[in-house]
Each structure stands twice: as structure tokens, then as C-alpha cells.
């Protein structure tokens, strides 16, 4: 149950430290991408996308198919992000946009319904067994050696890509015309539409962007995690925990929290595998009780 010896041994061996930390960082980056999508959608549209995990799943499976078909992993990542974006936009137009004004119950049910449909669709197309992509051909190169530990080059790619994409999104939302319009519309949609701007289009685009982040995360995760229909649920919970701890609406906060959680998971699976979830929960509850706005968040959830 508790293997604190293994944990302590790891702390004293740099090779283990490097391996575990790098694993923790990539888990964190994946969480960060997904959480950024959640925070983006919530911050602007004030809707909690409980179906977000399904887009992660869609991205992963699409990437697998794209890689199997074309042999190019870069295309696969693009395909993953794009498919999630397109499906996300369709979902937003057909379902989510109709419940913006409704209460949480309707929004929850709509998202739950989408997850059911998506999980079953994935099962139908790809089957119910576990699927694995393995490290793509582009990255089957000798690993980097760092302080006695091993760091697969793919990890570096994953971290770099995630950071780049997330920063790009942040800049987009803060400084571009698109970002400004979307943020203004979130505050006062009727005012913005009076200026001749088609607000629904912008909302759909934003939702699609949030889903694309999840889809990209799924595509990036495909080489290092096995896939199964229903894989969206645990990433959903984890990404929410990240958003809560980091602060709803704060992308830097999500990064900090995601790394923290990723590293906790990584070292935790060594030392206290059965309690990793529990530890993360306790961290989240502690934040909610003592610092409800999250580590770097702006407003308290009350």
C-alpha cells in the first residue's frame, strides 16, 4: 500500500529523480493543455464543459488513425486538434449554445449526453479494447541523458509543443482582435452584436479553440498513454482539480497547478500508488477551504 522506501530511495538517486520528474512534467503539461481549454471556455462563455474529456479522447483516437494512415506524427497531432475543434464547434452550435441561458442542470445533462454518444461512437469505430500508439517513428532516436537519468526526446517535444500552443492561445486571447471581441462579448453580448459583430460565430470559434486544446493534448498523449473509450473521465476530473487549484480563469495558475499535480502523480505512483487520488483531493479541498480563488486566480467561487 505505502512504499515510502521506494520513494525515499528515488529522492537520493538523481537518475530516478530525473526520470520521475520528467514524467511528472509531461503529465503536467497534458493536464495543463486540457485545463487551459476548460478555463478558456469557462472564463469567456461561463459554461463548464463537462464534456471536455471526450474531446481529449477524440483527439487521441483521431491522431492514432491519422498516424496509422499517413505515418506522420506531426500530421496526426494536427488531425487530433482539428477533429476536436470541428466536433466541438458542431456540439456548440447544436447543443451548448441552446443552454447558455439555462441553469446548470441542463448544461450538465447536455455534456453528459455528449460523452455517452462520443464514448459509444469511439467504441463503434475503434473497438472497445485498449489501443496503443507507441513512440512515433520520428522520435525513435536515442534518449537524452541528463544527470544519469533518461529523458525521451518525445518528452521534450511534448513539453515544447504544449507550452508553445498554450502561450499562443494566451496571447491570442489577450492581444488579438479576436480575443478582444470574444472577451467583450462575454461581458456584454448584446452590445457587441449591435456593433455588427456576429457574436454566435465568435462563441463557436472560442469553444472550438478550447476543444482543440483538449484534442491536441489527447494526440500528444497517445504515444505515452494507452487509449480506451471512457478515458476522458479521469482527465476531466484531473483538469478540473488543476483549474480549481490554479484558479478558474488563470492560465499561469493552471500551469503551476498542473506541474504540481503531474509531479505529485509521478512520485506518488512510486510511493503511495493507492493514495495518489486521495492526495490530490486533499490538496484541492485545502485550496477550496483556505484559498478559494486558487493559487493565482482572480475571483472566489462564492
Amino acid at each position, binding site marked *: 500500500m505505502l512504499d515510502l522506501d521506494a520513494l525515499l530511495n528515488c529522492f537520493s538517486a538523481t537518475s530516478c529523480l530525473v526520470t520521475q520528474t520528467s514524467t511528472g512534467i509531461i503529465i503536467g503539461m497534458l493536464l495543463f493543455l486540457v485545463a487551459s481549454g476548460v478555463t478558456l471556455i469557462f472564463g469567456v462563455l461561463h459554461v463548464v464543459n463537462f464534456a471536455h474529456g471526450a474531446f481529449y479522447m477524440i483527439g487521441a483516437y483521431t491522431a492514432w488513425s491519422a498516424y496509422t494512415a499517413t505515418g506522420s506524427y506531426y500530421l496526426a497531432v494536427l488531425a487530433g486538434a482539428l477533429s476536436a475543434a470541428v466536433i466541438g464547434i458542431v456540439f456548440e452550435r447544436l447543443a451548448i449554445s441552446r443552454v447558455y441561458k439555462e441553469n446548470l*442542470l441542463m448544461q450538465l445533462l*447536455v455534456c453528459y449526453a455528449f460523452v*455517452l454518444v462520443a464514448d459509444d461512437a469511439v467504441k463503434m469505430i475503434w473497438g472497445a479494447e485498449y489501443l496503443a500508439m507507441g513512440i512515433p517513428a520520428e522520435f525513435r532516436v536515442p534518449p537524452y541523458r541528463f544527470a544519469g537519468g533518461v529523458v525521451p526526446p518525445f518528452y521534450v517535444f511534448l513539453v515544447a509543443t504544449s507550452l508553445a500552443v498554450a502561450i499562443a492561445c494566451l496571447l491570442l486571447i489577450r492581444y488579438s482582435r479576436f480575443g478582444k471581441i470574444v472577451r467583450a462579448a462575454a461581458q456584454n453580448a448584446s452590445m457587441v452584436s449591435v456593433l455588427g459583430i456576429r457574436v454566435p460565430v465568435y462563441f463557436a470559434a472560442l469553444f472550438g479553440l478550447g476543444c482543440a486544446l483538449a484534442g491536441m493534448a489527447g494526440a500528444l498523449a497517445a504515444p505515452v498513454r494507452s487509449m480506451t473509450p471512457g478515458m476522458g473521465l479521469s482527465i476531466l476530473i484531473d483538469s478540473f482539480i488543476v483549474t480549481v487549484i490554479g484558479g478558474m480563469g488563470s492560465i499561469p495558475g493552471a500551469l503551476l497547478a498542473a506541474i504540481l499535480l503531474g509531479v505529485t502523480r509521478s512520485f506518488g505512483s512510486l510511493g503511495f500508488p*493507492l493514495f495518489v*487520488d486521495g492526495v490530490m*483531493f486533499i490538496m484541492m479541498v485545502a485550496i477550496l477551504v483556505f484559498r478559494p480563488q486558487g493559487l493565482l486566480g482572480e475571483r472566489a467561487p*462564492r
Partner: protein
Amino acid sequence: MTRFHPFAHPFARAALLAFAAFCGFLLVGAISPGTWLLDTLTGLFAAGLLVMSLHLLIGYTGLISFGHAAYYASGGYIFGMVLQTPAFVAACGPWSVPLATLLAFCGTGLFALVVGSICARLSEIYFAFLTLAFQMLFVSIIQGLVHYTGGDQGLMGGIPRPAFLGLDLVQVRDRYAFSAFLFVAGVLAVRLITLSSFGASLRMVRDNERRAAFLGVNTYLVKVLAFTAAGSIASLGGVVLAVFTSAAYPEWASWSVSGEAIFMIMLGGLHSFWGPLVGVVAMRIINDLTLLYTTHTEMAKGLAILFVVLVLKRGILDWLADWRKARHAAPSVKEQDHAAP
């Protein structure tokens, strides 16, 4: 002072109805030829307890709990694990089953109290998410403590059910009668709560928490107590399932059970007391019908939910109420609001 007339007093009326229903169920149990009907009803009893207890939160207090199945499963697990302990059965003898039920009820109540105390301070979205998170934590604990709970496989080896009060729970009819009793007791409990002054407090919190607070109501405590009561009553559903299957499974606490429970409430009608039970039956019909045509029940369910939420926008009993009001509409018809009775 008027004479005590049973039909004038709401509590007495509810108790009489419960008694009549129980007798009706027993009658069905006695005359039913095969076991199919009884088994189906037992399944509906379990689901009924789950949704009616959740209705206390969603319909009456306005609290959207997305993790209610945890208390459902907890009831089954406590019941099963207690009865699988030889020392317990040896000590309690013929009272084992009733005591195990009581322990499941109280133990789950404690669990719900702890979770409720933490969650009730939070706003809607965080509340929904945190209840879901606690449910997942519950599942991971069950899966982790393999030695005690059987982990993924669930409680194995069957649950001993010593006979009590002349009932042998291995027999279908006795098992059915026990389940019917728990069902009627649970629904009666929910009914009495909604009829009481506490029930009015729940509705105040649902309608306008701020004003309720200005009237001196401790809205936090109201929410915590509602959550605890709902969790406890849900545990009875878990006990019914545990008796039925002679086991307990972590799937009973999955988010699809919680999600489906929420949908059943909406499907039947959020604004009436009996709505959720109508929803349970309707869901069962939908499930059975889709099974006839396809194995993709999840997708069918998802599409059904989207239809009800986006197109119909309200549940069966709500739709019926609107239709009846429209027939008696005054010339100036305004959008009707519903009161949960």
C-alpha cells in the same frame, strides 16, 4: 378545534398512502406467477430510492449533486461488508440483516455529512464538480482496498443473509417484500421531509438563498442536512441492490449512474414530487426498447437525453401539468411557473 380527520392531515395522508402502496406491492408479490415482475420491480425500487433521494437535493433544495451514486453504492458496500464479517453475524444472529441495514444507513449518512459539510459552502458549479470528485475518490478507495472490498470485482463470495422475522432473503418473494418495504419507507421519508417545515426551508433556499439568509435561515446548515438526508436514503437503494445481487460493485458509484439519475429526474418532471419515479419507469422502458433494436444503448441514451433537454425542455409530468393548465387558460396567459407541492 376540529376532530382529527386522517385525510385532512398531510402527514397522516402520506403514511396511509405508503401503507396502501406497501400492501399493494405485497399483493403483487403474492399473486405474481413468475419471478420476472418481482425482479423488475426490485430493480425499480433500488433506482427509485436513488432518484427520490436525489430529488430532495435537485428538486427541492436546488443543489445539483453530480456524485450521488457514491452514497447509493456505499449503502450496498457497508451492508455487504458487515454481513460478510463472521463475528457480526455470530453476535447479532437473526437481527443481522436489520442491523446491517441500519449500519449502512447511518454509515452512509456520516459519509454524506462529511462531504456535504465541505461542499455546501461552494457555489453551484464548484458544488457539482466537488460532489463528482468525491464520488470518484470513493470509487478509487473501493478499488484500492482490494483486500476488504474485492476491488474491481466487487464484493465476492455472496452476502450471508440470516433469516429474520420469518423472512428468508434468499427466497425471491421474501427478498422482494423486503425491498418493497425499504422502498416505501424511503419514499415516505422523502415525502414527510418535503411536507415538513424543513421542506419549506429547502424551498426557500432553492428559490432565493439570499433572502432566506436575510430572514435568519442558516442556509449552510439547511444544505448540509439535506445532503445528509439524501445520502442516507440513497443508501437504502444500495441495500436493495446488495440483497438482490448478493454482492456490491464499484460500478454502482460510476458517474453514469449519477448522470442517469439526474436525467431520470428531469425526464419524469423536475417540478413534481412523483416526477422522478415516472422518470425511472420511463428510463427503463427506453432502455428495454433500445436493447431490442441495437446494442448501442449508450448512444441511444445520449440522443434521448439531448432530445428531452433541447427539444422538449421539460419532463413528462411537467409537460402534463402545462397541458392541463393550457386547457383551463385565462385569456391573458402568462408563462406558467411551477410549484413543487
